């Protein structure tokens, strides 16, 4: 019977479990460094000299960008009513792309916040979250579609949705539906209740919320600014978002995102090796 175990395999199983418990203790609760508090409103102003490009995306619309490694992407929810879905692909091999499952599994959490990372399917880091005022983001539920808009708001074909937006954004990189994985949505305060159902914390977002991401390799990026499908507002409300691409800063030796956890350090080890050995 293949499920039976021998005494030597019992010893191996016990050793595997011991190693896992040590990793779990390191990755949860007793992490080497605590995550920092959210960025304070009004803190970390943009240096105008750093601005490469700015754009305002109206409610319901999408945009796509190419980022070089090190460049920063700042997204501001001007009215506090926006939810911003993001996808990213490695620009030199688009089969490497955001992997939401690896992102939560590697970091032992579904709570994205300042100090956390977005991982690809190849064990490498796509983005670091350098600044974040809200700490209220969704990585489990995903975006709206034409069908969810009809269910929520009635049959109004003028209301745009994230699935269509992402298909369009991907198309403009020469990519198709096969290239669209699950996504993350910033300013979408979704959490899992004790009963397992999803709930929404509207008080967790405010006008002027922003998040600043650092590209950790050359990236193709798609953003969609549509109401999150779990947003309880009875009408379709999506304020404009301000997007700024900012020049890269010299990497500090004590960079928090690169060293916050053992998982982060190993993810950056993989990323640095892939990019050709930064010191």
């Amino acid at each position: 019977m293949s499920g039976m175990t021998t005494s030597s395999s019992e010893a191996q199983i016990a050793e595997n479990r011991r190693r896992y418990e040590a990793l779990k203790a390191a990755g949860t609760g007793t992490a080497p460094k605590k995550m920092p508090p959210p960025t304070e409103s009004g803190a970390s102003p943009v240096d105008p000299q750093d601005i490469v490009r700015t754009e305002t995306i109206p409610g319901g619309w999408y945009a796509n960008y190419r980022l070089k490694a090190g460049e920063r992407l700042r997204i501001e929810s001007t009215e506090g009513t926006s939810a911003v879905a993001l996808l990213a692909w490695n620009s030199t091999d688009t089969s490497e792309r955001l992997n939401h499952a690896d992102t939560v599994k590697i970091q032992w959490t579904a709570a994205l916040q300042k100090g956390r990372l977005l991982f690809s399917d190849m064990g490498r880091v796509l983005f670091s979250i350098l600044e974040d005022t809200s700490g209220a983001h969704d990585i489990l539920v995903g975006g709206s579609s034409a069908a969810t808009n009809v269910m929520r708001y009635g049959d109004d074909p003028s209301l745009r949705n994230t699935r269509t937006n992402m298909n369009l954004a991907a198309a403009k990189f020469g990519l198709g539906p096969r290239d669209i994985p699950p996504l993350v949505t910033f300013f979408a305060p979704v959490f899992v209740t004790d009963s397992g159902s999803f709930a929404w914390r509207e008080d967790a977002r405010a006008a002027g919320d922003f998040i600043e991401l650092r590209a950790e390799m050359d990236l193709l990026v798609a953003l969609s600014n549509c109401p999150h499908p779990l947003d309880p507002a009875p009408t379709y409300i999506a304020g404009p978002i301000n997007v700024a691409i900012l020049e890269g800063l010299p990497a500090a030796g004590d960079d928090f995102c690169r060293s916050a956890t053992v998982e982060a350090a190993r993810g950056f080890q993989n990323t640095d090796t892939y990019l050709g050995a930064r010191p």
Partner: protein
Amino acid sequence: MTKGFSATPYAVAGDLVLKHEIPARQPWSGTIRKGQLFRLIDTCGQQAVDTLFYRADDHAERYSAQDTLLAQGSAYISTGTKLVSNAGNVLLTVVADSCGRHDTSAGACSCESNTVRFGHHTKFEHACRENFAIEVARHGMTKRDIVPNINFFMNVPIAPNGDLVIDDGISAPGAYVEMVAEMDVLCVISNCPQINNPCNGFNPTPVGVEIYEPPAS
């Protein structure tokens, strides 16, 4: 859980079409026709079964973890869950489940993510993404078609503050989950080879798959 829980096997299946044991650590794929019943059996208990579904006549339409969770409004898969595609269509419906809870947020293990999670000494160990890459290639697909999957019999509780751990499995030997295909689907499975966390009780074991015709009416 907000969903009902049924430990009752689907009592009215028709003739057995296929019965197969997937050896420990191995992949499998097969087609399930509309109306057929698909049963997965955790023969020895505590064995994660990493599973993907594709529309049989258009592989660009495939299982979507996020659309599935959005449609049911809760975070785990059990009886009543409609497994939804990236086009918003229902691929299969879970109709019975003796385990009670299955994960679809933690994805499949890979050599690359293993190095980040467990250390670089685990790089050269077999992983689900290797199984998936081999098995989807048999159907003309590549790595870009490997999306985050369902982990049947894998226990990944998610706390209100976001904490998420792959915990000890709660499936007993012989646990099963049953689903009915709502369209013709290709199923691709990796019988998870992971030995660095409790998803397989640190000891990968075989699992069973069975396909039944719809009951004669």
